[in-house]
């Protein structure tokens, strides 16, 4: 593992009186894959969204390569260019073709010329197995295909890390595999990833480290194998019991 890339210190988030995250601490190194698991409503997604400031934390800090991006003077756009995100509901731009979705941001933010962006875009679509769909509209694709386009779109920014917010939760069961396979390939290539997921096998087999969250707390964290197969905390054991007994 490389140097620390993202470090979260004492992060809390409340929506009005509702405390969703309480004093979360986390460190992610370059090339590391961290999976965040836990019951629905435990704050996993909110935590991920706080990392790139789609939600503003109530307190605490998020350090990216040593710089606190929660600071009002921090360049959040620069951070977002370097740390991409993949959403549960794909969030593709419906009026743009598949390739248009992938090339838009690099052209706008990196001022890449269009033909170059298209070339790289086609490369990425090939990588996620959708080069033959480059010129169709996203609405004609299956959920799994749309999510792979969303991954290609995030990769087009040449990110240093990717955040995945339950990337397979909105998919029909038979489409989950194709998305997880793309994510496994990314992990193998050394992409730094933080993945909020309900896919326990993926967490065990692909993640370097697993964080178990419940009720806004980090209940347990450690090497993937250990947390997934030999959890220490009762709460983790209960949560994982169905998975472990399979």
């Amino acid at each position, binding site marked *: 593992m490389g140097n620390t890339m993202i470090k979260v210190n004492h992060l809390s988030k409340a929506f009005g009186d509702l405390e969703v995250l309480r004093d979360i601490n986390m460190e992610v190194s370059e090339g590391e894959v961290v999976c965040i698991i836990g019951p629905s409503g435990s704050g996993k997604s909110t935590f991920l969204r706080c990392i790139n400031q789609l939600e503003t934390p109530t307190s605490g800090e998020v350090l990216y390569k040593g710089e606190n991006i929660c600071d009002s003077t921090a360049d959040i*756009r620069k951070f*977002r260019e370097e740390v991409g995100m993949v*959403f549960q509901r794909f*969030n593709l731009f419906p009026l743009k073709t598949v390739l248009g979705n992938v090339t838009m*941001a690099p052209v706008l*933010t990196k001022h890449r010329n269009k033909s170059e962006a298209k070339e790289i875009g086609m490369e990425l679509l090939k990588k996620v197995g959708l080069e033959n769909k480059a010129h169709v509209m996203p609405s004609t694709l299956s959920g799994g295909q749309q999510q792979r386009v969303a991954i290609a779109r995030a990769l087009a920014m040449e990110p240093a890390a990717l955040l995945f917010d339950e990337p397979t939760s909105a998919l029909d069961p038979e489409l989950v595999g194709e998305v997880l396979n793309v994510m496994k390939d990314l992990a193998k290539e050394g992409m730094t990833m933080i993945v909020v997921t309900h896919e326990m096998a993926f967490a065990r087999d692909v993640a370097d480290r697993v964080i178990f969250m419940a009720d806004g707390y980090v209940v347990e964290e450690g090497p993937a194998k250990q947390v997934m197969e030999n959890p220490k905390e009762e709460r983790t054991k209960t949560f994982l019991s169905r998975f472990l007994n399979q």
Partner: protein
Amino acid sequence: MGIDLELLQTIGPMLFRGLKVTMEIAVIGILLGFILGSLCGYALQGRNKIAKGIANLYVWIMRGTPIVVQALYVYFVVPEIIGLIKGERMVLDPTLAGILVITLNAGAFISQLVRGALDSVDIGQKEAGASLGLSKMQIMIHIIIPPAFRSIIPSLFNQFIISVKDTALLSMISVNEITRQTQNFVMRTYKTIPGYTVCAIFYLVLLSVLMIVQKLVEKKIASK
């Protein structure tokens, strides 16, 4: 007192001269109204309280007064007030006043469409744009406006049809559009029944053509 060839030869050219004025006012009015309505609609859903207040005031006045009164006000009262301030008599060209009235009126209704359309763009797409490092302006231009614009095209066309009909009220301020031309014809010839009948049929054909175009446009949008 039937509708004969001689009558059509007299009223026909008048109606077509009126048509030119009607369409000129409606087209320019809806285009300017779209610009005005877009600005106000943007203000209505934005965070700037002063801009929002001004836009709300404008929409309130337009919705709360009849278009005839607006026309009379723009044509008679506004030049009078400007005259008092500048100290010299001022006359507003009726067609210009008409364009102004249609612009103001259409703009108020379009602002409501624009506000709704901007609000209705899926927040997930805005977040996707933000997560890719786009600026607020880039998100507005490249992510929010295209689907919002598309969603209001049918309603915009509807407003255009309403505006075309609204121009008839501008006969009150001596704009030489279709209705005024008919009034002139009837006043000169006393041929009340055929005059207004031809006028009504003329409008019906005009509006039917516009309604057919509207259907085609809607189909085209739906098919994409």
